[in-house]
């Protein structure tokens, strides 16, 4: 067993035993149960709704149906996942430095990037395990309760949803680790991370809206063509927010009938039969979203690497 495994082992066991993680896991499990309960009680009407092209996908319905009292699980995750990642990563480097353990650690014959990678992958392994087991529990419970066979397409869509959620957590985790390198005080890095998260979930849409309203012409005076173009532009600006990317990606994966993330003109709709897309087509639609999330994660990690590798570490 080499150094990186020892480091990851330690990270994972540290997190699992920590109060912080227990609180987070309770939070996630409660949200999951609540949204599942709501969707289970509305499942009958959702599956029986002949207007809906997705009605045959029972397990996707189980994840997405809601009576509007609470949002479905993937919307919840949109803002819970960053919180989870920030809570697990905000003090990864600076608490070691303040505790005097970082100097000791890097005086051992290990590469520094191993340490960084362990700090990133430890929490990610835990989150991945948590999400996968929750979703598998849901599938098993659904099988037991309804007795309906799961379609292979559904299974892959749900697995895809789990993978995208893990990538999304990975992005926030990389950001939190980066901030924990940049700031000496854990409180500062936590606040900054939460600030960024709040900005993207709450203020970013508002700011974009304000700017758009003052800059772009009124939609009533626009030709249809330019309206579509402007709409596309607004959506693309909104997609600068990782939360938007995540919502786009999961919505498409979990609702097979969603054909496009942008506006569709009447010409494009002519002759289209409202039917679910194949898995391949859905993945093609979300591919840009997934790769942008991955790219953002990489960028955060690369900056952390750059900042941390040659830094002099002392108390």
């Amino acid at each position: 067993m080499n150094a990186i495994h020892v480091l990851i082992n330690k990270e994972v066991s540290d997190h699992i035993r920590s109060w912080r993680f227990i609180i987070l896991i309770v939070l996630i499990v409660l949200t999951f149960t609540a949204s599942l309960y709501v969707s289970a009680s509305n499942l009958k009407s959702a599956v029986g709704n002949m207007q809906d092209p997705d009605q045959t996908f029972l397990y996707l319905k189980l994840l997405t149906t809601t009576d509007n009292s609470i949002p479905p699980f993937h919307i919840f995750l949109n803002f819970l996942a960053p919180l989870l990642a920030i809570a697990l990563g905000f003090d990864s480097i600076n608490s070691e430095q303040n505790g005097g353990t970082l100097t000791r650690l890097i005086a051992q014959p290990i590469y520094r990037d191993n340490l960084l990678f362990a700090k990133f992958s430890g929490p990610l392994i835990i989150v991945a395990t948590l999400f996968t087991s929750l979703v598998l529990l849901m599938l098993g419970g659904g099988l037991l309760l309804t007795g309906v066979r799961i379609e292979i397409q559904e299974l892959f869509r749900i697995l895809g949803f789990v993978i995208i959620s893990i990538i999304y957590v990975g992005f926030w985790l990389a950001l939190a680790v980066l901030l924990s390198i940049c700031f000496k005080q854990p409180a500062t890095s936590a606040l900054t991370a939460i600030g960024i998260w709040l900005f993207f979930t709450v203020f970013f849409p508002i700011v974009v809206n304000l700017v758009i309203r003052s800059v772009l012409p009124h939609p009533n005076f626009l030709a249809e063509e330019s309206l579509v173009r402007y709409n596309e532009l607004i959506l693309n600006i909104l997609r600068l927010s990782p939360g938007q990317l995540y919502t786009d990606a999961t919505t498409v994966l979990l609702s097979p009938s969603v054909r496009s993330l942008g506006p569709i003109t009447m010409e494009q709709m002519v002759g289209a039969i409202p039917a679910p897309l194949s898995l391949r087509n859905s993945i093609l639609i979300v591919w840009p979203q997934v790769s942008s999330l991955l790219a953002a994660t990489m960028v955060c990690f690369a900056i952390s690497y750059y900042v941390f590798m040659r830094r002099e570490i002392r108390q």
Partner: protein
Amino acid sequence: MNYPIIELKELSKNYGSLKAVDNLNLTINKGEIFGLLGPNGAGKTTSILMMLGLTEPSHGTAIVCSENSTRNPIRVKRKVGYLPDNVGFYNHMTAIENLIFIARLNDISYNEAANRALEVLKRVGLTHASHKKTGTFSRGMKQRLGLAEVLIKKPEILILDEPTLGIDPSGVNEFLNLLKQLSREEGLTVLLSSHHLHQVQRICDRIGIFVGGRLLVEGSIQELTSELLGNNGYTTSIQLQEAHPTPQQLKNTIEALPSVARVNIHELDIEISTTENITPQIVRKLVEEGAAIGSVNQKTYNLDDIYEKYFENTPSHSLNDSKNKISKKRINERSN
């Protein structure tokens, strides 16, 4: 036994315009206990970090265990145990868990690590606390656990940064004895940084005095004292019972004696610097002059004087090069 294990050549580190370490040349032989002595902020820690490859030198090379520390830090760190000042442990883990974790980072198997952990805990006298969480440890215990952690990888060199800081006197004694024993029994090379001269003096074979990023002198304590004493001559201080009526005349009389360099009379105290030991002649002369002598002391130089001489004046202006040997001229300049 007598080959260099740490070789620093023209090592320098600049932080912007500040020279933290300036042209450091130092050789430490295997099996030696070397004390790096200097006030806070003298550049001791920076030098140590460069030896371990934890920071890059601006100029010069550090060769440790015949490896270049800047290029091959991993290989150096395999052979060097480093105990930083203000050492910290994972508070939620027990002493033995902390040790095993570090041992496993050094590619030691779990069973071997557990055995060694027990062994080193016994060695530093912490067996009773091996299953206690380190969060409850006192400063002295942490320091000893730090030593245990350094020893668990069986290093060739121990580098200890201010290891005695914050431990009570009896703890310091124990710690230093342990170090000495380790060095003698296992042939470990020890590099110790400190600003406590008396502690360093007790166990170090050689010391280097480090001020303002420069190594001012280097040598065994005997060498340093004899150099200082040899250059500075003798000082006789005399206390009078009552003030002499004509102090100026008294001063002139003493100055007339052979080999007297300097005379200071301040009310009841007379201090005379001479190049040779002529205390009896001085006393005889004073008695002839009718001085009422209360006591006579011949001053010898001890380590405190060495320490003060080098530490009190920062060298930036008065020194133009940092030689490894005591320069006679320099000491004379400083004492006058």
